[in-house]
């Protein structure tokens, strides 16, 4: 039933796609957290996952980089296809997945190391030792994260000396330094003030050229402001997926309309 409606509400013309989610189910032990999710992630766009608390949007996001593998009792079914490979298959090494799909978390979580080392870490784990290459990549990533001018004179100071918004941009630099295909954002601005939030949003829009972005957000306004595609989830199901304008102005599913107009949530 839901699936039919879902497929009807899909956009008819498909943009270039980097990832395709096929019949994805996810279980925390016995709890069926994600139910038959089908949609796709358009390349070099911002796709927002929205829905009320507990709807499964963060759970879905964390499937993309196999974060659930870190904790026992979690189980995936179905597929997330990236370049034709099912990245949630047990045969695929989760570390390999995370090397291509990086993540920015809800609360800024820099390492208790220097600003430079925070960004360089992704390169170091890959065994890169060439100092000039690391220097160059770190600068590029910090520029990409709109942080370079603020920190270029104190790269070797502790990341904890930065403000919350700067820390989150540092985490973004850490996530893009290795040129991933997709960057996942898990409510990246929920711990930040409105000004820092705005700068992070502008940053995400500017990042679209180099990466594909999937963002979980609690704020519908945020999704409406700058995402290109929006997926609305409710109780572990994907209710509607379409370009953001259509979802917000002309949702085909009554539940989506109710959520967007504030009747549920």
């Amino acid at each position, binding site marked *: 039933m839901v699936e039919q409606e879902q497929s009807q509400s899909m956009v008819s013309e498909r943009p270039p796609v980097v990832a395709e989610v096929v019949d994805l189910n996810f279980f925390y032990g016995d709890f069926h957290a994600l139910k038959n999710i089908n949609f796709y992630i358009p390349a070099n766009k911002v796709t927002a996952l929205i829905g009320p608390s507990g709807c499964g949007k963060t759970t879905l996001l964390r499937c993309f980089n196999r974060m659930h593998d*870190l904790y026992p009792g979690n189980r995936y079914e179905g597929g997330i296809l990236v370049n034709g490979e099912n990245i949630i298959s047990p045969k695929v090494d989760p*570390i390999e997945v995370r*090397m291509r799909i*990086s993540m920015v*978390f809800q609360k800024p*979580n820099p390492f*208790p190391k220097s600003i430079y080392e925070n960004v360089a870490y992704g390169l170091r784990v890959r065994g890169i030792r060439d100092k000039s290459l690391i220097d160059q990549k770190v600068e590029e990533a910090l520029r990409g994260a709109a942080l370079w001018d603020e920190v270029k004179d104190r790269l070797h100071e502790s990341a*904890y000396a930065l403000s919350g918004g700067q820390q989150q941009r540092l985490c973004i630099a850490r*996530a893009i330094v*290795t040129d991933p295909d997709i960057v996942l954002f898990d409510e990246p601005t929920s711990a930040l003030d409105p000004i820092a939030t705005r700068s992070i949003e502008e940053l995400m829009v500017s990042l679209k050229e180099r990466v594909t972005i999937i963002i979980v957000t609690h704020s519908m306004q945020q999704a409406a402001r700058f995402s290109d595609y929006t997926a609305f989830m409710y109780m572990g199901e994907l209710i509607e997926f379409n370009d953001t304008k259509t979802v917000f102005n002309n949702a085909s599913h009554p539940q989506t309309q109710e959520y967007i107009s504030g009747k549920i949530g």
Partner: protein
Amino acid sequence: MQGRDNLLHRRRLEKVFVAVALVLIVSALLVLLSLTAEMFIDGLPRLNWKFFTSFPSRHASDAGLLSAWVGTVLVISLAAIFSIPLGIAAGVYLEEYGRDSWLAAIIEINVTNLAAVPPIIYGLVALGIFVQSWNLGETVLTGGLTIALLMLPTVVVVSREAIRAIPASLKEAAYAVGASKWQVIWDHVLPYSLGSILTGVIVAVSRAIGETAPLITVGALTYIAFLPESPFTSKFPYVSFAWLQAPFTVVPIQMFNWISRAGTDFQANAAAAGAVLVILTLLMNGVAIYLRYRLRKAVQW
């Protein structure tokens, strides 16, 4: 008005409780202080350079602590070398790898129980294993292994707690850029928890310095008038492990030996040895507090 009377009563009760608590703690501290002070006053005449550079002797005024403190340093160093890496590794395994496995559960129950076993039992185990089965003899090596056994549960427990205190968000951040489990442990878990681990280890060491019973059980001597061979030699390969095979004594055993000569001048020697132990423990705890302060400041989240 009823309510106000009741409030006055409750306020009074609170004051009474504070007063009682204060009296109790002050009297406990006074007893401790007077005992320590008495020991220092008794031992003071002996606390000089000669005391640390002389072997035990029949004459109380000539008798010193040399073989005992060298023995303590050797035994405790060995114990630290054996127990610290093993204990930290066990802590890492239990927290990072063995979560929810039956093997980890068994180890955990055993470690927790071991921490509560009286030290003399360790002495008996060590006597059976190190002295009799492995034929290591009544040597520095046996003493070090015995104390290592005793320290191990504490080091494991301390390491686990330190590792558990690291926020999951930091580990996830490392995993999210493609780090392997070992990289997460080596680059993040261990460096961030080292401060707390070290603090706990120093407390364990300062307790081990005072251990007497298990070392008597494995055959530490009470009278030793020579030092173990130096670990450094003038000839190639410049290091020697002969000291591992040497018989030994430690400060608390030497102290016990002097105390047991009742009514003689040796009581002053015992008091002096006690003062040395107390100062050593205070120093080590001071270092632990300083380290905790420094490392917590460097690593914060």
